């Protein structure tokens, strides 16, 4: 059904819930489904919004790190780190979390939502306890990245079509499986980022092992972790006198 704007819709007299469908189309992918605070959107009033004390401190600490804290108006530099804090605390950028952050930073929640919806790693919908990002860009694709994503979807029951377009949750809602653009680890191709740590090169069968390990709360494939890898060229001591007699660091 195509949403149709009611002919008698007057935004000036409308109640907040009238802004949500059926009258207006809502882009589910890019909205937190929050009702706007007034029209135009207002900066939340600290007297009305309850912010957990530790969250307030954490946010304030980050805001203070940036030189624009002394600038006129609202300092905004901390927007991305603050949204990271919200996401780490609530699991994703929840509407309530965004309002709390906006209240501490003294910006409108809509502003923070506009930032959150721009970046791929900030999620404006639930993303489960664990995140598996499978690289499907050039180098990984050549070495079987698509098939690796297939295996993850098969194992978790995530929808393959949706996983290739922004991510899909597993059947129990615990694991987010998402195809992703280049993660900067083409030497591990095909690879995946599991809870923000890189693993590769993976075989299709590894997908099922990783999911089992995540569900059992075990360490994921320790022997395929990026930090276990040495340099591609191995240990090589240079014999070039320009290098060995250099006066800089790395002597």
């Amino acid at each position, binding site marked *: 059904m195509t949403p149709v704007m009611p002919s008698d819709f007057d935004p000036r007299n409308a109640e907040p819930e009238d802004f949500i469908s059926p009258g207006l189309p809502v882009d589910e992918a890019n909205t937190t489904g929050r009702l706007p605070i007034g029209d135009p959107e207002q900066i939340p009033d600290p007297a009305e919004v309850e912010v957990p004390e530790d969250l307030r401190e954490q946010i304030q600490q980050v805001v203070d*790190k*940036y*030189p*624009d804290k002394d600038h006129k108006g609202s300092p*905004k*530099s*901390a*927007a*991305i*780190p603050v*949204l*990271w804090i919200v996401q780490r605390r609530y699991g994703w950028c929840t509407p309530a979390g965004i309002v709390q952050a906006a209240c501490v930073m003294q910006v409108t929640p809509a502003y923070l939502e*506009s*930032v959150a919806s*721009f*970046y*791929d*790693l*900030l999620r404006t919908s639930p993303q489960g306890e664990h995140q598996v*990002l499978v690289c499907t*860009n*050039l*180098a990984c*694709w*050549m*070495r079987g990245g*698509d098939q690796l994503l297939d295996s993850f979807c098969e194992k978790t029951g995530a929808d393959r*079509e949706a996983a290739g377009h922004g991510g899909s949750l597993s059947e129990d809602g615990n694991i987010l499986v998402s195809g992703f*653009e*280049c*993660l*900067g*680890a*083409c*030497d591990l*191709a095909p690879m995946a*980022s599991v809870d*923000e*740590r*890189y693993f590769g090169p993976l075989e299709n069968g590894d997908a099922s092992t990783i999911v089992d390990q995540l569900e059992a709360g075990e360490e994921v494939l320790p022997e395929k972790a*990026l*930090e276990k890898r*040495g*340099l*591609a*060229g*191995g*240990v*090589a001591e*240079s*014999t*070039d006198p*320009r*290098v060995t007699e*250099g*006066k*800089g*660091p*790395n*002597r």
Partner: protein
Amino acid sequence: MIEETRVLLRHAEDPKMATLAGYESYGGYEVLKKALKEIEPEWIVNELEDSGLRGRGGAGFSMGKKVSFLPHTDDAKYLCCNADESEPGAFKDRELMQRNPHQLIEGIIISSFAAGIGHAFIFIRGEYDDQADILDRAVEEAYEAGYLGTNILGSGFSLELVVHRGAGAYICGEETALLDALEGKRGNPRLKPPFPAVQGLYGGPTLINNVETLSNVSHIVANGADWFKSFGTEQSPGTKVVSVSGCVKRPGNYEVELGVSLRDLIYGLAGGPLEGHEITAFYPGGSSSPVLTPAEMDLPYSFEAMADAGSMLGSGSIIVADDSVSIPRMALRTAHFYRHESCGKCTPCREGTNWTEKMLERVCTGEATPMDLDIISSVQDNIMGHCLCVLGDAMAMPVSSMVNKFRDEFEETIAEEASKAWSGSLDGLTESPGRDEPGGEEPGPGGVSPEHVRRQRLAGRGVPAGEDV
């Protein structure tokens, strides 16, 4: 057999290099101490300019010149280290930050000292969570040791350094979009001029350099410009960490002198193509560079030789494709990436990447005609140079190079896929529903929906007759 020339990656296999004590045991921070006590900032700027160090992030602009562009005023100046390495095929900064974070921090402090900068940032991509943690620890160690903060080592020079994590957007690697992201906005590029060196972060003069460029600084200050120029070629001095990936036996980062031959890099260090395969094409400088063919394998790997060959060295990332890779599908993958990452600010890029992807999809499903290839080429011509930043160009260059150099393969793919579609519709001996007719999503011949058939063809897997979906 070619050997690596490890300057930046020397001793990098030693895990203690990632700690302050380990770095200092290999002579770390000695140059900084000497510079703050004995060396004039102007000397450092001159030396950087003389050394001919070219930016390692992609554009290859002289780093010393960039520093000298900063106005000599008392205004607040900023340094941003660009660690938003998102170019497909590039992973050298990840290795440098993970194994030797203090080398980067020392380079940042010395550059800031030379240019009179009081605030520095490392903008690291959000996906590099592990590396950002390593940098956080290293910065903390440097603060504790008195290399950062107010009145560093009693010299009167002060510097604050903040590690800023991005959140997943390729466009933030573009310098002005990076500034927007640092100011807490959506990462959209800005109009240039004014260039960031004049008006950048918070409107102040800003120096933006890549991780590898800044990592070179302490080596140049310690050994002098002539030492640096003894590596590499005249126009591309120094060593370069090259990321080789794709269809090769030993993908990884290799540090070599600029000017070694591509054959030495791809066949020598990276081990050449996988068993039983042959190389058909490769990107010499990340996914944004026009592809080269094996005929150009003996060229020296330097900024000037790559430019003469009609491509570019870019960030120094070689992605190798072999005969198992379909070039039209590789073009589609490339276009898909840029369509996804286009910020949408400029029309030629937003629409151009979108339609190029759609046209290439048609090529890969056999719905295109050879005339569409000309249209693809003309769309690329109309993107180049018409946007605020080079993201659109970064798609246009490789895609048009593939269409030009591998036109036969594109035409073959169209013909092949079109004939498959034809025979597919005979399999079920029923009429396949047309694209525009209702019921287009209903199972077609053999119980397979046309959409499924299309997806399978795009993935290059063909359509098994009668597959159950």
